């Protein structure tokens, strides 16, 4: 769920959706999502002062609360 959510948002914010790659690492209590996008699209998924990234994290917190699992989003 969390992965698809980030994928949908990233795909729809970047200019080059083919370069959106999202890796998911799971441990019993947490999910780590590693998002990679084209270099020129970095600003679009991070935003000024990280505003976009923080908004995505805020939405992930809803999933996190519902599913009782820790979700970490890394962008690089």
């Amino acid at each position: 769920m969390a992965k698809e959510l980030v994928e949908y948002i990233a795909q729809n914010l970047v200019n080059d959706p083919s370069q959106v790659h999202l890796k998911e690492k799971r441990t019993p209590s947490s999910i780590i999502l590693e998002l990679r996008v084209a270099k020129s699209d970095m600003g679009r998924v991070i935003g000024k002062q990280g505003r976009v990234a923080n908004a995505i994290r805020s939405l992930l917190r809803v999933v996190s609360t519902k599913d009782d699992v820790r979700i970490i989003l890394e962008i690089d």
Partner: protein
Amino acid sequence: MNPNEPLEFTGETVDAAVTAGLAKLGLQHSDLLTVEILEEPARGIFGIGARPAKVRLILRPQMPPPPQPQPTPPPKPKAENKAQPRPPKQQNEPKPSPKSGQKPPQQNSKKGQDFDFEDDDEFVIADDGNYEADTPGEDGEVGKEVLSELLRLMGIEHHITVKRAQANRDGENPPYLLDITGPDMSLLIGRRGETLSSLQYVTRLITSRKLQRRANIIVDAGAYKSKRSERLQQLAVRMADQAVETKRTVQLEPMPANERRIIHMTLRNRPDVETRSHGEGEARKVTIVPVLNK
């Protein structure tokens, strides 16, 4: 649940109220929350004047602490937790970001339009009666699609109503209001409406890219914003009257940008008061200063 008070719960005792709140929010532990005791329970005399305990649960902005072996369950919040400080705003942007101002020229192609939203809400939402049920236009339709997809992926059961707001500032194109209803609204609204702001921000960004122009939409949940807006307008007038009467500056509690804006807008036509914002970040608040006639 009254969406106006999304995170307030009552119970016979403080503990019962917290437990009820946790259940409602679908949480297991109280360690995700700050508990504010709004009212201690009172027994009353022969049942007269008895009232339940009332607590406000504030979702912490942070992720839960890293999983560590926890031999004991987290302590139940006690009444003394009242003064527990709010956790500082999360500074979770470690990655350097390329400035969005520096756009390579090829991104000015038709696809590469970027839209920035300076404020959470450019509009003061007037009371419910001011919305016309209207055939949704493009913004409303595309916005609804995007919002619905986001909510589906978040696992939030929802229904979205699209309404067109009436113009409340001259010459402006009234926004489409997308109001979400469903069982998880308090979770979706979040502390001080922060989650809802994020949801609106992401919805607007994606919708704007799809439309190739700035999407004129507002996202609300359980009419939280319109009700809150109404209450803030009443509060503004009341506090302004008080400031004038006592000839003293009145300071309001800290509010997010969109709510401060409602206070400023409500009072901007009053010659007897001035409004200013003071403080930084989470602590930023509005003060109402009486204008003294000399």
